[in-house]
């Protein structure tokens, strides 16, 4: 089992599911989790390619992606909490003040 293809295929499937999740769910937390799924699928692809070429760089990228994901979650969840305090809702459709 040394081919990279199945992993990338899985990665693509997971990514698409994540995308659809982002687009279909209206709950901000759900959207966030779908984004995590997308990040994760990308990570999987990185690791698979890293394994294929025998280079560590792919894994290091994943490491940084995780760091950024953690950051994003921290700030994003803080935002959600703040918004919930004012709007009593985590529905992103309620946040349409920017409409033209």
């Amino acid at each position: 089992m040394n081919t990279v293809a199945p992993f990338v295929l899985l990665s693509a499937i997971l990514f698409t599911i994540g995308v659809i999740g982002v687009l279909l769910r209206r709950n901000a937390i759900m959207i966030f989790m779908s984004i995590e799924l997308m990040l994760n699928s990308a990570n999987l692809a990185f690791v698979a390619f890293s394994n294929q070429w025998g280079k560590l760089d792919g894994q290091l990228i994943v490491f940084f992606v995780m760091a950024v994901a953690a950051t994003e979650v921290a700030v994003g969840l803080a935002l959600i909490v703040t918004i919930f305090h004012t709007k009593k809702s985590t529905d992103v459709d309620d946040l349409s003040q920017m409409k033209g």
Partner: protein
Amino acid sequence: MQLLVILPILFPLVGLLINAFFGKHMSEGLIGGLASSMVGLSFLVSAWLLFTSGGGPGIVDLSIPWIKVGTLDVPFGFLIDQLSLTMMLIVTGVGGLIHIYSIGYMHGDPRFQRFFVYMNLFIASMLVLVMADSFLLMFVGWELVGLCSYLLIGFWFSNIHNAEAGRKAFVVNRIGDVGFILGILLIFVTFGTLTFPDVFAKVQAMNAVNAPVVVAITLLLFVGATGKSAQIPLFVWLPDAMAGPTPVSALIHAATMVTAGIYMMTRAHVLYVAAPDTQTVVALVGALTAFLAGSVALTQFDIKKVLAYSTISQLGFMVAAAGMGAYVSSVFHLATHAFFKALLFLAAGSVIHGMEHLSKGEEESERSGAPGPHKAPAPAHSGEHTVDPQDMRNMGGLRTRMPLTFVVYCIGGLALAGMPPFAGFWSKDEIVSAALARNPLVFGLLAISAIFTAFYIGRQLVMVFFGKPRSEEAAHAVESGSAMTVPLVFLAVFATIAGILNLPGLDSLSHWLVPVVGQAAEALPFNIGVATLFTVLALVMLYGAWALYRSAYVKAGDADPLTRLGGLYTFLLRAWFVDWFFQNVIVKLFYAGSTFLARVLDIGGIDGTVNGVGIMVRDVSASLRKVQTGLVRSYGLMMLLGVVLVVAYFVLSASMR
């Protein structure tokens, strides 16, 4: 010696500067005295120039750099020769007398100081015009006298009609001036110079008759002359110009400024002689103008309007003479006309002054009672009267009330009518003789005009001085003071004897002007037949006027005997509807066009287009704005669409390779 040449211009300039800046603290006498003496000094210098340069070529040239661009080099250059000296003497001589007259006439006017500033400016400008040695500098004087005319016609500007008349004069003159300036442009493009001697030398070197460019130049210059010298079709401003104070009418609109066109054509005679076609046009326009204005003068009631149309008519004589190449006769008539028409105007002013005496009398006594400088005297001639003091129907019988005025008016009138031995006889005779010899059509028109002249001046004399007074004002008119009558007497003397200038046989003016205009322009020998014929005709017409008007007006409201002419009478009274045409067709069209351009085309069309572009952008963006729903998911969807498209592009383009 060189600088001396510009002294005649400098004196009035100094006078106007002193009066303009310090006049506020000066008395009327001082202001008027200063202005008059400055003109007098100019006259003396001119006379001195005459004696020092007399006989010889008499040319003094002085030039100070002015405009110098590339090949265009026009200096402030002055050319003093026999012709300009003649004009200088007329301008400063008649001008000086009118200045003195004005001291009396304008007495008590709140803008007395300003009046004399303008008058001095006029003298200076007129001198620039006649002394200039290039077309451009002449144009400077030409426009500046137009400015003075504008300022002086609208002198009593609080009456909007006066201001209106001033503006009309300026604008109509400007129309002519554009012709003049186009002529100048063409001269420079053709000859590469604008100074008179150089241009004339090059024209003579061309040695061509009716070269198209010369015809064009002369016609354009003539357009300028029709404006300034009130020829068809641009004469309409001159009758209105009578709104100005009477000394102004005498000086500017009779004796000097309006003759600038004749002076210019005489000055540029080299060009005109080289373009006989233009000459014919000029002669015909002049003769037609003489005829038209003479016929209109028959029917006018305003004492000054009659004189104004008479002036136009006489200017027509001069222009016709110039057109026929009889430059000496033209200048001769210019000189005699300056004397007798100035005399007539000033005498008319005296009449008006007398007519206004009744309404002014009370104020006068009031003023003498309390002569404080703070008490502003009422304007003397601002035209606020119950009875129009210029309407001849309100006059009558003034010969007993104003005997001196009557006498000088008669002298002026007889000179105008062409009765020997008064000045007008000699000069008019020369022109008519020349016409007889050269152009029968012009002769015919001028002959009829001459007959009209005798009739209308006769009519005026009868209406003003004979019969019974037809108004309170006329009944109580008094003779004017000495400041006004002394110049009248002087002018009357000149109007009587000015014929000496060019008496047949003596021909002093002809000989004097030969170096300038050449032998060909000299007057023809005296034609005793023509002279007799016209004297008889004039006598007949004077008698006719006497017979017709002696008893026509008993009271002011009576109909004029000429109303029997019916429609023709109205046609003449309205001055052939020329002015009506200008006012109701051209001016109205201009108003309408201007309003259309400003309101419709500019606001709606051009600005509308610009704003339309702005509105379009705004509307398009307003509809595009709807795309921004504010819903994160829809943005996400758009993003995904973009991602799919971009990825698809890369994938497909990669697989294409």
